[in-house]
């Protein structure tokens, strides 16, 4: 069995060490939700930090927070998931290159490479162990977790550092807004579910986890299972996939206490999320959370942080609206996420 023994998260909420579990909700009225960033010099050598872009700093810092939380100096593997890597660095190059090809500053090119985060974490820890990076939309973090579980079951690792990270920029938002699935104007994040305007609210964040083979006093919860589903033919197929996923893990649908919903404010897809869950685990309590962190490829990292804390603290923060009744117990949590109803991902977290 695999356990979540450490968490380090930088998000648009107060999720830094010592800030409690979403006690005071962060309100942002913005085009996208931006991370509440720590003072990086407490975590990264200031000279090295000066050359690093924001995403790399967020990644290294959340990884270090995570290892401290787990009480581990060196992990046995480092695995990162990122949908887009360093958007800021890529934009710097594209901005120059698409006007005129001239000699580039090599730093943004190096940092735009997706594996920079995992390898910079390895460099800062002097860790020569297994190191990899997954870059597949909303399967990115799920692939990391699958890999982490394999590492443990193969006997190659006792503690794996695995995380998901993505950043948003105004330029990138300008571009993806053209696709019609995103909010076209700034809104107050807490109004996401009542807003009259269509589209998802974009966000960002970095969440790392220590996935371990042994339970200890640091354990938050058990990472019970991870599965992905590509291009289901119907909502019904997705729902039966969920039921099979639960059955494979020895659970009846009625035993799921809480579902962290994949809804993001884009009503067409939110309807699908609701249908999938209503058809597969109708009795479970459902909770919305993307008004807290926004939508991005590795947003399930934020959801996993929520699930692990809800189980270990046995409470649901009041900033997350509960659809349906309050659950009687908090032992089995299902996380559903999706990318445009094409890629569906499920994580099961248990007590």
């Amino acid at each position: 069995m695999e356990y979540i023994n450490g968490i380090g998260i930088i998000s648009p909420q107060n999720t830094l060490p010592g800030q409690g579990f979403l006690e005071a909700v962060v309100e942002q009225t913005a085009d996208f939700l931006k991370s509440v960033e720590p003072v990086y010099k407490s975590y990264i050598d200031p000279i090295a930090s000066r050359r690093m872009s924001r995403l790399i700093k967020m990644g290294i810092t959340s990884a270090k927070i995570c290892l401290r939380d787990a009480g581990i100096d060196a992990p046995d593997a480092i695995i990162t998931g990122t949908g887009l890597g360093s958007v800021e660095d890529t934009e710097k190059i594209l901005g120059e290159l698409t006007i005129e090809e001239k000699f580039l500053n090599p730093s943004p090119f190096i940092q735009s490479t997706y594996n920079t985060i995992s390898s910079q974490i390895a460099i800062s820890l002097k860790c020569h162990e297994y190191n990899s990076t997954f870059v597949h939309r909303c399967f990115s973090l799920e692939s990391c977790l699958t890999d982490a579980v394999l590492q443990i079951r193969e006997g190659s690792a006792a503690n794996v550092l695995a995380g998901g990270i993505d950043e948003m920029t105004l330029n990138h938002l300008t571009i993806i807004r053209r696709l019609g699935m995103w909010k076209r104007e700034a809104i107050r994040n807490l109004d996401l579910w009542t807003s009259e305007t269509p589209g998802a609210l974009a966000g960002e964040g970095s969440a790392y986890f220590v996935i371990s083979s042994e339970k200890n006093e640091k354990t938050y919860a058990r990472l019970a299972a991870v599965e992905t589903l590509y291009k289901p033919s119907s909502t019904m197929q997705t729902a039966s996939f969920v039921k099979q996923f639960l059955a494979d893990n020895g659970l009846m649908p009625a035993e799921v206490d809480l579902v962290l919903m994949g809804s993001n404010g884009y009503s067409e897809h939110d309807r699908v999320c609701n249908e999938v869950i209503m058809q597969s685990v109708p009795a479970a309590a459902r909770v919305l959370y993307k008004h807290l962190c926004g939508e991005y490829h590795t947003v399930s990292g934020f959801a996993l942080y929520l699930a692990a804390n809800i189980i270990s603290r046995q409470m649901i923060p009041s900033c997350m609206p509960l659809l349906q009744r309050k659950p009687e117990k908090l032992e089995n949590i299902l996380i559903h996420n999706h990318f445009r109803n094409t890629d569906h991902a499920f994580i099961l977290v248990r007590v």
Partner: protein
Amino acid sequence: MPSRIFVTGLGFISGLGNNAQENLNSLLNLRSGIGRIRHIETSLRDELLVSEVRMASEELSCLAGVPSTEAYSRNTLLGIIAAKEAYRHASLGDHPGLRTGLISGTTVGGMDQCEKYYQDFLFNDSKNAFIDIYDCADSTEKIADHLGLKGFMTTISTACSSAANSIMFAARLMKAGKLDCAVAGGTESLTKFHLNGFNALKILDKQLCRPFDAGRNGINLGEGAAYLILETEEANEKTGNRVICELAGYGNACEAFHQTASSPDGTGAYLAMKKALEMSGKTPDAVDYINAHGTGTDNNDLSEGRAIENLFTGKIPWVSSTKPFTGHMTSAAGSAEAIISILGLVHGIVWPNMNFSNQMPELKFRPVTEMIRGANLNLVMSNSFGFGGNDSSLIFKKYGVH
């Protein structure tokens, strides 16, 4: 749990040819794919040598069976062509009961279109169809769609070791019982983005690259795609496919040294090769041939050469870099060179390290410079190392040999 992983299909497109047979013919005839830039629109056109696939993207669309009016990146087209070849080679589509996954490595994704239309993306709606094809996952999903695959899929990006790590991850999923078969490899098209990026790092040779030569001066970039079909022994009993060879070992380690440079003693390379060898259950003297990462940069070849000397303390196996044939195919290099190694293993050929003339003073061994035919090869190793010190090594074993 399945313990043996068989290779039963190959698909390969590069500057050497559009399928595995054409690639083999070029290798046998010592025909390099490296030359002047013909297809990428770049001001570096007359300055750099690259190994381009010898077709414009419109022609590739035709070969891939994609209407050229649709938004596809060159990267995706290359991936579809090579993956289809491998998939048909093993007739995996005829065995719907088997769980087949797709693990693909890439780094440029749809950058070739993005860099063309980026200003439109920012300022108008005219090229919106190309916005969605920018990320790495798009190529993987389109390949899956063209093969009709709906099972497990993911995309790996560890720079120049991406495809090697994809093969490794696929094998691990199969051994864990999550998959029966896999299409694994990588795809990478040349783009203005990374031509300029590598150029800014000053690691591109303006002449033909000379791996392991004392006077080596950098990389010639290349493009293409290469995919392997992997089957567990149990799945192979069902498919009845001819086994080409066995994937006997793999190792992944991290240099943890510098974002773009290798450590002087090649710690990451040493560890990756050592792990792969340990998994194969063989001693260093059992390795007959190493297809080196051998990029032709000062740094890589010294670091890799030392790592080879440190691991193979007795007799050093035949070593060559085949990058003077294919150019450095970056994210596709791992699977492309895996296939080149396998073709050597199957046909008893040690590929020469072309463009070599002067021994590196720091190393005791020299690469193979003339093609060796009729070689008795049982175990071959293929190295792929990436920026960030993401080092991986694969070992292939002749089928039926213990």
